[in-house]
């Protein structure tokens, strides 16, 4: 064995990714005994009218949520100030969306992002939105900045479809990343086409999918209107919080600890092996804005 294995006992001891331990059915929460100074900021914003009972996304509400989130994230006065910190007028910006699912990235959110990027002064021809075709889209191939936006949902092989995983379409051969339940998906972020370009990550928590069985699983009864967006610059931190949320929902729904299967350990390895970000919930400052009902985390 090349290196010391990380075992279930390490999770129980809390010596490694708390969110992953949670996903494996073990109990963790923000603010444990070994509380450290937060190093990473994330903003969770919710609005009760973001999505209606029929699943229709309210574009005005979504725009406001995004605006409030980036203002809080960057601690600035106005949304445009935040966007100017992320994007320059001369940037070529790819919005990496996600069409798989459901749930998929809502068009209303894509429009809200595009609107603010245009306001920074980026030329319309230098902005594009894509998912499966990114390697054929000029803007993505020449991009200088990326916005990574996708919903969280359970996944039959990687445990969850995550922000980390959302870049898999930047590799022409996605099966390269399948080994050991996609353990090393974070390697994707080293690809030249994406490395160092991501300015903002948005984990869409409007109607998360928290459970499923089988390769094509989707059952609306395992989704709920959480009506949230999780916004930050660290994809690993956001995915860790997303996992924590899914596990909390599973505990509530199934009335017992119910680990996500397979264990989405690619989130932990993105931190411990690949140093892409932090998966330690104690090192994340989570700012909560808006609707508080049934917030779960």
């Amino acid at each position, binding site marked *: 064995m090349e290196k010391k*294995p*990380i075992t279930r006992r390490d999770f*129980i001891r809390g010596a490694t990714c708390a969110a992953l331990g949670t996903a494996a059915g073990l109990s963790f929460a923000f603010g444990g005994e070994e509380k450290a100074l937060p190093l990473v900021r994330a903003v969770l914003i919710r609005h009760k009218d973001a999505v209606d009972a029929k699943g229709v996304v309210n574009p005005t509400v979504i725009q406001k949520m995004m605006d409030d989130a980036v203002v809080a994230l960057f601690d600035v006065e106005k949304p445009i100030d935040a966007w100017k910190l992320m994007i320059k007028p001369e940037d070529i910006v790819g919005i990496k969306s996600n069409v798989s699912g459901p749930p998929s990235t809502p068009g209303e959110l894509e429009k809200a992002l595009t609107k603010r990027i245009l306001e920074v002064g980026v030329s319309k021809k230098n902005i594009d939105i894509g998912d499966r075709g990114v390697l054929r889209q000029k803007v993505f191939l020449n991009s200088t900045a990326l916005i990574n936006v996708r919903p969280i949902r359970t*996944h039959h092989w990687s445990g969850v479809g995550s922000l980390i995983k959302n870049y898999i379409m930047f590799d022409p051969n996605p099966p390269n990343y399948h080994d050991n339940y996609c353990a090393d998906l974070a390697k994707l972020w080293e690809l030249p086409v994406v490395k160092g370009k991501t300015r903002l990550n948005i984990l869409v928590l409007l109607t998360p999918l928290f459970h499923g069985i089988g390769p094509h699983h989707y059952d609306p009864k395992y989704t709920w209107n959480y009506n949230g967006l999780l916004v930050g610059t660290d994809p690993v931190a956001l995915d860790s919080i997303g996992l924590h949320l899914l596990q909390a929902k599973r505990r509530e729904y199934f009335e017992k600890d119910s680990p996500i299967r397979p264990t989405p*350990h690619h989130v932990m390895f993105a931190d411990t092996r690949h140093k892409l970000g932090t998966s330690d919930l104690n090192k994340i400052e989570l700012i909560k804005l808006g609707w508080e009902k049934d917030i779960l985390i």
Partner: protein
Amino acid sequence: MSKRLCILQYLIIGVLTTIASADVTVVVDSTNKDSMITDLRQLLPDESLGWTAQGEIKFYDRESIFDYMNGAGEVYRMYAYREMVVQRMANEGQPEITVELFDMSTSEDAFGIFTHSRLSEDTSPGQGATHQPGLLCFWKNRYFVCITAMRETPETKKAAYDIAGKIDKLILNTGPKPAILECLPLDRLDQLSVRYFHLYTSLNYHYYLADQNILKLNEKTEAVIAQYEPHRSFLICIRYPDEKLAKEAMSSFREAYIPEADSSDLAQIEDDKWVAAKLESTFILLALDAPTQDSAISLIRAAKERLADIDNEEP
């Protein structure tokens, strides 16, 4: 590809087909076909209660399965999955139905993939079936079949069972379940928790043990995991191809998971639960999440007593 061409292709493939993948090499013996169907398409019905076959039947082997189901194809590749066919069926005013038929090479692996994610079990169709809204799956002999409706209605459910019944009839023979199931004591066993597998990736799906293969599982090992009431303790029984590998695996497990244990191979871990391990010839038995030392030992002892019932053929 025409049906005739496809059959010809099978004939050319010949007696032994070696399927290679990144982490597993499975040798498929196609000599002992009995009444096996050489072309999976022969098992698919053209119609059922108003649903009729639409378009071409799609065919996917171990490599092209990713074209159909992306990463989820790896689930089937953890077993000796060989190939599959997919048929879509339509009925005006009703949701579409998709029929997926997998050749898993052996009945043991058809049972294995069936147990991978079952939530319930009925005795028919086939040798065991599981139904949840919009999805009916069953296994029979070396085949695993899933029938999916985009949305379940009373009509789609009826049609799914009708399609399953037709396929069941065309697969003439049943196949054996894995012999290693015999090592599971029946007292307080949760039957639905029984999972048969080969690789550590499968084990980690059912019980996340470690990020590495600390039990040295490979495509030639056979393993079963199950839970016992009332504390939901786990029992894992693994058969290795030879005693040497079993010994090495036991050492590896001790070192990685219970380094503090003495020769009794017993340890109480951080969540106050007990782990017990036992090396017995080519077998390793593990009790996990046991509430007491005695319960861990009892589970191992009961499993050990049953090992004699398992045939001594190599897995």
